[in-house]
């Protein structure tokens, strides 16, 4: 009741909040017959611009919190690649009220089984799961990160985190070296998603003043979102959000984000790579795909479900079981704000008679067939059912639900609504699935990477040699 003391505006806000939180949403998702029972999430924005979603899930004994900032790899200035990631590390340097590592120690002391900071291509987020009695803890920690950390970042902290990041990035490079030539061809120098050859050159050379400047322009309330889901008391949690975040003010200048049009596939591109890390021969074919904001998103998701897996009618069923052209087929959709692509990765196995060209032609022929032939009613029903089950299962998990809210907020400005998602799937038409195949899987606009094991040993850390051939 302390919030009543503040102002009349506070009273009205609180009453509205109470009314909203008491609405238990028991809905039947349109066209699905599935009865959903969930408490409607509270969605509001503080005066300083921080966007907040709170959802009570009374059957959970834990609370998941995610705080995100609209700053990611794509905002790294040229020559300072890795800067957003470096800032994420430095945000654990301590704050006015927390010693170095304090944020981590407090979460560990509270028994948090899951927490981390993650820098993605488009945004950075910090998440944690705590016992529901500790809901205030992540709010305190995140308010410290936002309001009181910058003053603690110094040359010593920068030097230390540079070393840590170098190790982290070399480990990532060890695991993902196979993908590097492909990514560098897909997003060349100058593109916001460009990957430099030396993963830590940018963070090694950037100066403290530049780090602090980028940090200050990216980590501000009007560039952030906060999502809290779990066994919480909505009124109390809302009160805590106001207590910790209302006083945080925005600095004068905001980060100017980098943008780029979705990458055009200029024709038939063929990338040939030889490297010691490959075992045998692998083919990776890439096509443009719609982003999650596109109206094609659901039909395209259905198409990916059609192609993936190993069941009847999948690419694997044809290429592996029927034609014996491949040992495995993986289908993966890579979706970011500025660009999305579909990747079909094929292991050609040990039969040396199978050529890259044969497999490329087979895949292109099959994709053309997927564009011509609509899914049958039974197949469409299976696609809907498997998507429905995935959506329901994700919704059960508080941490996943918090991320779903965040992703939907970023895309639509509204919290995630399971019933709406289910309805979108239930209204999916078979024709739309084959239409998106025809529109996006154009054999004249694709990138094909032929990855082959090199003969003999190549020294570690050496450049990967590759050639790109483009046909109009």
């Amino acid at each position, binding site marked *: 009741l302390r919030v009543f003391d503040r102002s009349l505006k506070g009273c009205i806000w609180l009453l509205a909040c109470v009314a909203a939180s008491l609405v238990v949403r028991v809905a039947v998702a349109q066209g699905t017959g599935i009865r959903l029972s969930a408490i409607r999430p509270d969605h509001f924005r503080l005066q300083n611009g921080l966007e907040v979603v709170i959802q009570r899930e009374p059957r959970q004994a*834990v609370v998941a919190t995610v705080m995100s900032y609209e700053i990611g790899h794509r905002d790294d200035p*040229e020559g300072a690649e890795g800067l957003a990631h470096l800032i994420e590390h430095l945000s654990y340097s301590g704050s006015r009220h927390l010693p170095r590592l304090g944020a981590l120690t407090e979460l*560990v002391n509270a028994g948090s089984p899951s927490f981390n900071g993650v820098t993605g291509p488009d945004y950075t987020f910090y998440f944690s799961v705590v016992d529901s*009695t500790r809901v205030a803890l992540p709010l305190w920690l995140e308010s410290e990160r936002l309001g009181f950390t910058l003053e603690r970042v110094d040359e010593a902290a920068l030097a230390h985190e540079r070393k840590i990041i170098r190790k982290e990035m070399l480990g990532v490079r060890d695991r993902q070296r196979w993908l590097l030539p492909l990514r560098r061809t897909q997003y060349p120098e100058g593109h916001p998603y460009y990957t430099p050859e030396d993963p830590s050159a940018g963070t090694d050379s950037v100066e403290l003043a530049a780090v602090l400047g980028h940090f200050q322009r990216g980590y501000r309330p009007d560039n952030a979102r906060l999502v809290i889901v779990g066994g919480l008391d909505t009124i*109390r949690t809302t009160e805590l959000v106001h207590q910790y975040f209302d006083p945080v003010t925005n600095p*004068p200048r905001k980060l100017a984000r980098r943008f780029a049009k979705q990458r055009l596939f200029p024709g038939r591109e063929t990338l040939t790579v030889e490297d010691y890390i490959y075992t045998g021969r692998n083919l990776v074919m890439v096509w443009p795909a719609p982003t999650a904001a596109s109206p094609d998103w659901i039909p395209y998701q259905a198409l990916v479900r059609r192609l993936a897996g190993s069941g009847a009618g999948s690419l694997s069923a044809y290429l592996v079981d029927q034609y014996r052209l491949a*040992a495995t087929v993986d289908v993966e959709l890579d979706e970011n704000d500025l660009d999305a692509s579909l990747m079909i990765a094929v292991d050609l196995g040990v039969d040396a008679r199978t050529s890259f060209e044969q497999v490329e032609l087979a895949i292109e022929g099959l994709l053309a067939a997927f564009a011509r032939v609509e899914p049958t009613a039974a197949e469409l029903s299976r696609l809907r059912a498997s998507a429905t089950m995935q959506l*329901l299962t994700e919704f059960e998990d508080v941490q996943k639900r918090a991320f779903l809210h965040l992703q939907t907020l970023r895309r639509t400005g509204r919290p995630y609504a399971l019933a709406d998602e289910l309805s979108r799937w239930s209204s999916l038409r078979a024709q739309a699935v084959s239409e998106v195949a025809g529109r996006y899987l154009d054999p004249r606009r694709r990138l094909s990477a032929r990855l082959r094991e090199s003969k003999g040993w190549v020294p570690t*850390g050496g450049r990967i040699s590759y050639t790109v051939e483009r046909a109009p």
Partner: protein
Amino acid sequence: VRRSIVALFLASGCASAAPIPPPDPPLARTPDAAFRRAAPAPDPLGAPSAPASIERRTLSNGMLVQVVRTTASPVTSLGLVFRGAGADTHPEGAALLTAKLLLEGTRQADGSVLGHLSINGQSPEVEVFDDGTVLTLRVLAPLALPALTLLSQIARYPAFDPGAFENARNRQLYSISEASLFGMAHLRDAALEELYGGSVFGSTLGKSDAVAAFTSDDVSRFYGARYRPEQTALIVAGDVDPEAVFATAESRFDGWTPTLAPPGDLARKPLPLATDRHFVGLHIEKALAYGLCVAPAPPLDHADSPGFQLAAMLLGGHAVSRAAEALRYHAAQVYAVGARVEQRAGQSHLYVRLASERADFVAAMQRLLAEIARLRDQPVTEQELARAKALFNTRSALATSSNADRVESLAVDFLAAHPDLTSEVRLERVRRATSSDVQAAAARWLRADRLQLAALLDRAYFNRELGDFGKVRWLQFKARKAGAGAGPESEAEE
């Protein structure tokens, strides 16, 4: 001319990267307040809800049925758990092949094979653990009983079709060659072999020669002997009526009897450590060097087990553990230190792993050993103990937060070598552990002579760098596709 070109090139380079503006003063803008000075206290308003209750019944054929009724989610999870049909059996690899074949079709009453196994688009999944196999299916709540019927059909009348057998075996052979690409798995196996003086643990996938020689009779024999009602549990979590589940289970599994006599259990006794041991170096070309420390750990039913679990949590962990504090936050030698206690074929082991740049690797491993010695020799503080217990507690809560999690948790309990040691009992034992228990367990199980060190690294660089760790056994590793052999190729001792 050349100087001019270079100057122009540099100038254009400088011009292309715009300078990054410094921050606007002041750095601290938010007004301070008293409530920000310390961590907020726990709030009783958020007290956790009571755990869901479990109803249990044993069917007339000895099969256990457990039902967790939860009304909130429209998803119901079902699991059929076959104890004794896991990877820790002979012949190696047969458990996985049999499990995968269960999903390839069942024989119906009229003798025809039903190949497409699904309920409303949901297909069952199967996972093979060391101690058993778990078949799971998730459906909307109104379909729970039909799903139960489908699971019973799969378990009781597998088709074991010859064509499906060939495909499943080929896929397993390919998975074996794929698995050979993972250097850390080889490193773990090589470390265990050095620790016990030979290969003593099987693998879920099996060895390629043995799997290639399997026939469908092998699978039928494995199924006939190891899929038995008295060793099976049905677990259902969701918005279902327990009595309806019990009645349906009784009717669907009535008359299920195994076709073969039960196999003799594999002898499980503590393995003696090898006397002549080396640091194992597995040569691989990577940007980092990857280190591993393995120690035998107390089995789950041992009095030291709770204390040891807490000791492992204090030693390693990606955020704030003793080793992470020392190696990452103070020395910047590693990105993370992982620690995990794993049960494998009746034995327990602690694995601690790290990755470091080559120049830091030896110092990082020495620092890790120093932290292990500190855990062994110095008391654990009450704050550290509380921290480890809180983590154990919240992990347990998170592990039962969805219906699928509840089924998995009960399945793991059923498969455990000591079924009376349920998750709740283990949690209670950990809650009761004292700091002396933790230190005593560390002192007994983390003795220097019980630790086995191994690393994935570049031999050309480290050939003379590992002297501080005693004798080194080098293995050459280069993964190969199926048909060309896989795994360590040669070895030399130095």
